[in-house]
């Protein structure tokens, strides 16, 4: 693999080790085929769902777009499969600063849509760095924590990790993109949890997080300090009283609940889904895709998707348990929980059980960055899995 650049600070933590190349045959033999099956199924299902959801839209079905992105995602997945996670571990600093650089670039030169700067327009594709950043963020924090695995019991470790993590979170928050910022935060929490910091530290952090959330949403506004813009706060807390203002702030939420409920057991089909077809459900191709899926395909259709998600989460947790080293375990844990968090917050949001935040539904929502990132995340999971330790036979 040529000349290795050895970071002097890494010395002593871990003996140097050759990066192991894994052949194609080995990869294929050792793949988690159940996870592969889930990936293929959820991709196909997502494409089928989005075709129905967007068929009545002004621009027509988004299927062809999504297929292109899925193909690109498959390429990214395959690429990730053949990169030893060890490389990421060693390169966490360049990855970190590279990610930060791009996020700053978004703020400086990004394309603004509906008052928020999230995208960099590269001509054929609107690239959303914060989506890819989700996986990179986990790789970076895992790299940092793996370096300090012997100091995990110290309070300084989680504090330093949070210090590292806070910067990208803030950069996403000011875009503004609260949903993605929350995903980052959740991923950070999961990474710290799997890395093995003390339970007492976890408890303090959880208390602290709850306190901050309460302060931002209730205490500070009451005192006249608004960290969030009023509409943001309304969207976050609106789900606790959806009927307060049916034509105003909670309009989307109410319509979303109606949309889900109207689907019934078997769904109303593409032609009969009036909430989706007549645009009553906003953003049905992206953030509220689950509501439209539930309307068109009913309880059966929505359940199939949820079960596929559950399958992925289960396999991801299996991979955490079987990981080759702490770094891989942290990465896999971070990815597993991030995935779970996104699925839960997005679907619960459409059903009025979670705050409204702009989080895409994995493998379903229209959007290339999100779809490719999900492929990348599962690619990294599989890369960890194929490099799991196994007992030699004989």
């Amino acid at each position, binding site marked *: 693999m040529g000349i290795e650049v050895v970071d002097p600070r890494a010395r002593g933590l871990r003996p140097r080790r050759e990066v192991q190349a894994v052949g194609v045959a080995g990869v294929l033999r050792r793949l988690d085929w159940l996870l592969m099956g889930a990936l293929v199924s959820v991709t196909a299902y997502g494409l089928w769902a989005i075709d129905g959801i967007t068929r009545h839209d002004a621009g027509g079905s988004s299927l062809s777009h999504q297929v292109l992105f899925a193909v690109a995602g498959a390429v990214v997945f395959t690429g990730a499969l053949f990169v030893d996670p060890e490389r990421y571990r060693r390169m966490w600093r360049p990855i970190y600063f590279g990610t930060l650089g791009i996020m700053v670039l978004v703020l400086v030169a990004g394309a603004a849509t509906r008052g928020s700067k999230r995208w960099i327009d590269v001509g054929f594709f609107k690239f959303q760095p914060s989506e890819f950043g989700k996986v990179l963020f986990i790789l970076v924090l895992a790299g940092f924590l793996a370096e300090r695995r012997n100091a995990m019991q110290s309070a300084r470790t989680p504090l330093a990790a949070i210090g590292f993590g806070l910067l990208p979170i803030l950069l996403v928050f000011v875009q503004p993109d609260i949903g993605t910022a929350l995903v980052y935060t959740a991923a950070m929490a999961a990474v710290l949890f799997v890395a093995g910091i003390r339970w007492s530290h976890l408890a303090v952090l959880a208390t602290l997080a709850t306190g901050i959330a309460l302060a931002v949403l209730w205490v500070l506004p009451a005192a006249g300090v608004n960290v969030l813009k009023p509409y943001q706060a309304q969207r976050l807390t609106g789900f606790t009283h959806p009927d307060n203002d049916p034509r105003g702030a909670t309009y989307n939420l109410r319509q979303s609940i109606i949309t889900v*409920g109207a689907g019934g057991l078997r769904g109303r089909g593409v032609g009969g889904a009036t909430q989706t077809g*007549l645009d009553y459900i906003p953003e049905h191709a992206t953030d509220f895709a689950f509501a439209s899926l539930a309307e068109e395909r009913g309880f059966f259709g929505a359940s199939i998707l949820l079960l596929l*998600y559950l399958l992925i989460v289960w396999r991801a947790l299996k991979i955490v348990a*079987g990981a*080759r080293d702490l770094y891989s375990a942290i990465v896999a844990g971070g990815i597993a929980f991030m995935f*779970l968090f996104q699925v839960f917050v997005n679907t*619960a949001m459409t059903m009025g059980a979670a705050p409204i935040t702009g989080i895409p539904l994995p493998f379903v929502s229209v959007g290339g960055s999100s779809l490719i990132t999900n492929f990348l995340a599962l690619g990294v999971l599989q890369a960890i899995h194929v490099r799991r330790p196994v007992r030699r036979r004989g």
Partner: protein
Amino acid sequence: MAERTAPSRRFLPGDPRVSEPYRLTPQLALRVAVLGFLALALFAVLFLRLWALQILSGQRYLAQANDNRVRTLRLEAPRGPIVDRNGLVVVTNTPGTRVELWPSDLPKTWQARLAELRRLAAVTGVATKDIVAALAKHGNDPLTPVVVQRGIKQQQIYYLLEHQVQFPGVHLGDSFLRKYPYQSLAAQVLGYVGQISPEDYKALKKKGYQASDSIGQSGIERAYDTYLRGKDGTAQLTVDSRGRPKTAAVPRLTPTPGETLRLTLDIKLQRAAERALKYGIGLARLSSEGAYADGGTIVALDPRNGDVLAMASNPTYKPSLFAGRKDLKKLAPLLNPKVAKADNYPALNRATQVTYPPGSTFKPVTAIAAMQAHLVTPNTPLLCSPSYSAYGQTFHNWTPLINQWIDLRTALAMSCDTYFYRLGDDFFKLPSDRGHLLQGWANRLGLGETTGLDIGGEIPGLIPTPEWRCKQFGGPPCQGYVDRIWKPGYSIQLAIGQGDVLVTPLQMARFYALIANGGKLVTPHLAEDVEQSGSSGQPLRVLRQFGAQPPESANVDPAALQYVQLGLEEATHAPFGTSSGVFGNFKYDIAGKTGSAEKFVHIKGLPNAIKLNQSWWCGYGPFDKPTIVVCAVIENGGHGGSAAAPAALKVFEQYFHTTATTTAKPSD
């Protein structure tokens, strides 16, 4: 890849260079398990919620989803036409287009909504604030459309249709506008149609009226709204979230047109009456005493059954101002109290909604009451002197050029005030246990109370009594206060229809109908029947006959009544009669009484109220078989014989299809 098989077989844990092989620690296993349980719990929440929404409440949400998209449009029913007694169409419809707003489909943000309303205001010419007010008036109820305007122009329709995308929530619907072939004729009687007021809506909600309904606002249109309005139909269409229609409207219920209302009015007589009013006012203005004449009313009744044949009021207006595009400037005299005053209240139906002192036209009441109370016999002569003095006061006759003994007939014919002053004094002197006989008879003869006219809106007027006076001036107690005591002068004044007494011209017409028909009080009415609306030319089926209510006898002694009739006939024929110069040469035998009632009025440009004569004439014909009663009032028109009587004659001329030659002469 073949050359790399050797290294690839060796997987990492076996590498001797790894000093500390990684193992799944119990701690990590525990944490993975925690994550696993968390995942299961969260998915359980999702499934339960999904189950609750889709399976348990699915039907409810399905219904709400359908409510979202289905708009029930109203198909307006054409309002029933109104025809006169001969079937001439007085009010009909002309098709129009109405602009309607569906609040639920307007933009959700205030700025976008206001911007759209501004655009709509620019197109329709209705002020933005009026549209906002109309929306607010209906409580911003999202599912009740608000009619912005009826009767927009073709160009406006095209514009709205072409720019539909810019006007979410704006619908165009077929509408019907009232059309008045005779323009301002009978305006106050017919009334007009307009959007239901919140108060009316509250009261009529249970009868199926809707907040966006049109409803008769006054007169016939209001009183017979239930028959005229018909029944609206409905159509349904599907709209998207921005209120843009996605399907054509599918009719669900066809509208039922309103029924035809036949009036007792004779529209030709009505036209003659309105022209006669203008003629009378013009005539009055020629004389110095009637220089301020500026309005009036003529009522014509059939004395046999109370059919209102004509009911004219001046000044008047065109009810078409209320149909379609509203010109606020032209409507101001009808809606703005200040402008209305300056224009002398054109919206008022002066036959029923304005009271005047009756003056000498009241004398037959005094005559009947005096005979019934046996204060006088018809043939007892009393002195008709230039003045009558009593209680230290002097009451003057309208002309000082007389001093002779006359009987009741002549007193009526000459309209001798002093004759009736004596009777008034006699009424005052009656012992209190006999009650207030004059006032009692006035009430029995239908004065000072509403007549029961079917369109309502009447005011009762006033027949003053001692009790009224006491109460009016702060009593009881009544004794010991100068103001509250009934003085003899009040009875004396009342005998000639002066003082506080106030009646409507319709009450007087009804009273003269009683004289004409031999003592029966009729109930005046304007509606004859309701008929099925057919396409033109078809014989119409009568659905409901309103007809005349049977006249009620007022229990007047026929003999007494006959003397009054003779007196009235003499008034129009004897050389000394007050209106013989007007009716003396008329081909048909008309009997009637003039009146010149003094009233304090405020005249524009004068600092104080001045006393002006209200010119009256009431009478009937033909004398031996009366079929029509006419009562005319010319406000500030001077003496009855010089303004009201000639105006009334014009009505008789139209009624009998003949003309007369008249000679004007001074009268009372």
